[in-house]
């Protein structure tokens, strides 16, 4: 379904991705872990075509999206949902208009039909009845959840989550994990989740991949990752200060 082949990307002298290769199967949840600033968000933006790699290829639904123009990408993106790390809610629109944005813009659905879907999705993320609020009236965790509702509103086939549980309290985080799992189970969605939260990573992942120094250094089931021999991965998942990863 998604096939990332030897992708390179840098910003000036800052080389971020140095040959990332990763395959994500249909219906799977892939969790991507790695240190802050290692390029997880950048990788997600490549998968949905917001950034173009300097080298390498990204195949989505059997199309090489690195060769597509913006118009072709729009067709592909209609099958995607994305939750941004900073939620990226449209601050001139209220919550309902944010969540229903895709439906308002790209479907001929009636307004009350869209509003019904909007409140259903808001209920899923535990935020019923806030349709009329503006993004500036929301807390950080609420924004994140509205962003999540927006990402799933149009029933996409692939969802990219950039740190869905960061900034949520443990109970909410567990609820969101449950939601991600349910979506995947019921609708056989393909999900890619970037997270720092190892509990949630183990809970939702079918497979996990770790980025380090611009490459995927390990990929496998949560079980395999947990029992890895790679000292870098070990240090990361146990969150220890001692090990091969030097903090700067």
């Amino acid at each position, binding site marked *: 379904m998604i096939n990332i082949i030897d992708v390179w990307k840098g910003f000036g002298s800052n080389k971020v991705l140095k040959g990332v290769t990763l395959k994500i199967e249909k219906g799977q949840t892939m969790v991507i872990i790695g240190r802050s600033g290692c390029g997880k968000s950048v990788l997600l933006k490549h998968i949905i075509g917001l950034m173009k790699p300097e080298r390498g290829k990204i195949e989505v639904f059997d199309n090489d999206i690195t060769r597509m123009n*913006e118009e072709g990408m729009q067709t592909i993106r209609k099958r995607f949902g994305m939750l941004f790390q900073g939620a990226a*809610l449209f601050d001139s629109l209220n919550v309902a208009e944010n969540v229903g944005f895709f439906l308002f813009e790209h479907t001929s659905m009636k307004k009350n039909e869209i509003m019904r879907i909007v409140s259903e999705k808001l209920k899923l993320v535990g935020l019923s009845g806030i349709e009329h609020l503006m993004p500036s009236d929301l807390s950080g965790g609420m924004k994140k959840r509205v962003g999540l509702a927006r990402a799933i509103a149009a029933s996409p086939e692939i969802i990219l989550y950039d740190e869905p549980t960061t900034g949520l309290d443990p109970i909410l985080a567990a609820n969101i994990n449950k939601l991600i799992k349910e979506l995947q189970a019921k609708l056989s969605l393909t999900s890619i989740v970037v997270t720092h939260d190892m509990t949630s990573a183990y809970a939702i992942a079918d497979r996990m991949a770790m980025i380090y120094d611009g490459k995927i250094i390990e990929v496998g089931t949560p079980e395999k990752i947990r029992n890895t021999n790679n000292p870098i991965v070990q240090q990361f998942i146990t969150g220890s200060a001692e090990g091969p990863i030097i903090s700067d």
Partner: protein
Amino acid sequence: MGYLVERIGKKIIVGLDELGRMASLLQQIIVQGAKKPFNAKHFVQQMVKIGVDTLPIVSLMSIFVGMVLGYLAYLQFKIVGLEMYTGSLVAASLTMELGPVLTAIIVSGRIGSSTAAEIGTMKVTEQIDALRTMATDPIKYLAVPRFYAALIMLPILTVFADIIGMFGGYMIGVWKFGIRHQIYIQKSIDFLDPIDIINGLVKTIIFGGLMITISCYKGFTASGGAEGVGQATTSAVVLSIMTVLVSDYLLTMILY
């Protein structure tokens, strides 16, 4: 010396490069604007915003400019005994030059800055990326309605500026200096050439298009958080005003 030449050279290259990118944005705005569907709701919202934000200050400016023009024209004309032409000078200078240019400068200040700030904020908070992930073209969604709203609203505001400014001149000429009402009006109308008025309005359409393209461009290319948005806003206003002044000169040479 070599260093200075190098720096100036670099500036020129960067400037030309930006000019090219702005031209390409303008082209994309026109292409996207021609595609269906047209977002009528945003278009009307933007027209209202331009009107509400700028009409008060445009009115204030034009009444004072009209009064000053009337005052100075009367004093000069009186020396040679031609004070009945006060209205003619006020009307001609407003419709041909001052109305269009001053309105465009005010709109550059108010709408240019808010456009660059709004789009720039959306850029640095990834809202533009979010639009793209939802298969919505940011140029079509954000720039096109603003562009057409500016094209329509600038001439309308300019007509207001012209009329209010002429009224300012009338107040001074007739009420203060006692020129006869009929004469003042008659001489004003005699010197108003419809072609001049239309040329003045054509200018404002071009000013509006350039100003909004520059401001959208500065917004779309903002980077680096709040500070970057601030810079984008300032440079949008400065560049818009400069562009209005330079293009005014060029257009005047072409049109008259």
